[in-house]
C-alpha cells in the first residue's frame, strides 16, 4: 500500500513538472486558426468559438418564422472578414482544407451545412467595406454618406 502511494506521489510530481514545461506557448496540437481581416468581435473570440452556431441560426427561422427583422449576424459578413487566400491570392472555397470554417470543423469532426446553399467565398464589395477602413473611419464614412444624402 505504501509503495502504491509513493508511486502515485511520484506520478503526480512528474506530471506537475510536465505541466510547467508546457505552459508557455499554445500547444502545437491546437489547430492554427487564420487571422481575420476586419475589426475584432465585441463579444470576444472565446464567445464566438462556442456560440457562433446559435448566432448563425438561419434567417429562415429567425426572420421568416419568428419575425425578427434585425438579425445582427450574417454569414456573408463572417465570410468576408474570415476569408483565407489560397496560393493564387484568391479566397479559397470550403472545398479547401485551409478555409476558415474547415480548420476547426475538421479538427472537431463537425459537418458544416451552410455551404450546401450559401457561397463559401466572400463577396468582394463587402470585403472592401468591412476590411479596408478601420472602425472609426468606417463610422465616419457612414456618417458622411448619410450627411451627403
Amino acid at each position, binding site marked *: 500500500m505504501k509503495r502504491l502511494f509513493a508511486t502515485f506521489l511520484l506520478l503526480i510530481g512528474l506530471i506537475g513538472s510536465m*505541466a510547467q514545461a508546457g505552459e508557455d506557448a499554445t500547444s502545437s496540437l491546437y489547430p492554427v486558426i487564420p487571422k481575420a481581416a476586419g475589426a475584432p468581435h465585441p463579444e470576444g473570440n472565446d464567445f464566438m468559438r*462556442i456560440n457562433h452556431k446559435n448566432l448563425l441560426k438561419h434567417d429562415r427561422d429567425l426572420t421568416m418564422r419568428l419575425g425578427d427583422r434585425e438579425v445582427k449576424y450574417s454569414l456573408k459578413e463572417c465570410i468576408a472578414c474570415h476569408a483565407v487566400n489560397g496560393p493564387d491570392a484568391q479566397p479559397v472555397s470550403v472545398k479547401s482544407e485551409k478555409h476558415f470554417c474547415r480548420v476547426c470543423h475538421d479538427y472537431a*469532426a463537425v459537418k458544416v451545412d451552410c455551404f450546401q446553399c450559401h457561397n463559401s467565398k466572400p463577396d468582394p464589395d463587402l470585403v472592401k467595406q468591412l476590411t479596408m477602413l478601420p472602425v472609426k473611419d468606417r463610422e465616419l464614412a457612414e456618417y458622411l454618406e448619410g450627411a451627403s444624402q
Partner: protein
Amino acid sequence: MLSTLYAVLFYVATILLIVGTGMKVLKYAKTPAPLKIPVSPAPRTKKGVVLRMGREVTLFQSLFKSNRWIWIFAILFHYGMLLVLLRHLRYFTQPVWWWVELVQPFGVYAGFIMVAGLAGLLFRRIFVNRIRYISSPSDYLMLLLIIGIGVTGLGMKFLMPVDILAVKTFFLGLMRFEINPLPMHFGLLLHLGLVAILMIIFPISKLMHAPGLFFAPSRTQVDNAREFRHLSAWAAQLPPLPEAIPDAEEK
C-alpha cells in the same frame, strides 16, 4: 492547476482501468472450470460456440429468451453507448477517421437513446418489487453514474456548449504526455470527473460482466461430453489409479 489535477486523475484512472481489468481477466482465465456445464440447448461444435457467443455479445440472446422488456432497455442502452463512444473517438484522433466522422450525427441521437435505456433499467430497480429486493447500492450507483455521464454530456451538447477544440487539445496532449489547459466549465469538469470515477471502479464493479461473459463456462463450452471425455487440467495431472483397486464390475 485544475487542468493538471484532471490530467493526473486521467493517468491514474487509465492505469487502474487497464491494470485492474487485466488482473481480473487473468484471474478469470486461471480459475478452473472442472465440469462440463454448457447450458442446453448448446452447440456441439467449436464453430457453433463461436456463433453462440457472437449472438450473446451482439444480440443478448439469453436475456432475450428470459426477459423481453429488460432486453429492450439493455439493447437501447448498450447500442446507444456504443455509438456515443465511437462518436467520442474524435477527441483522441487527429485527423479524425472517416467512419468516426460518419457516426457523428447518429451519436447525438444515440445519447438520448442511451439515457432512455438507463432510465428504464433504473425504473425497473425501483418499481419492480422483487428486483428492488435484490438490488444493492452498487447496482444503483452504476446506473446513476452512467446516467450522470450521459446527462452532463447531452447538457454540454444542447444547453451549455463548451470549447471542444480545447477539450480535444487536452486529450491529444495527454496521449503525448503534455498538459494543455482544460476549459473551466462546470458541466465539462463534472462529466470528466464522473468518467474518471467510472474508469477507476470499473475493474471492481459489476461492469466486469463485459469481459466476464467470455469466461462463462455455461456459454463457452462445447456440448460434446458424449463424443469426448471431459478431463479438467488438474484431473489430468493425477497419478493413475493403482492396479490393486478392482473395477466395479469385477466384484
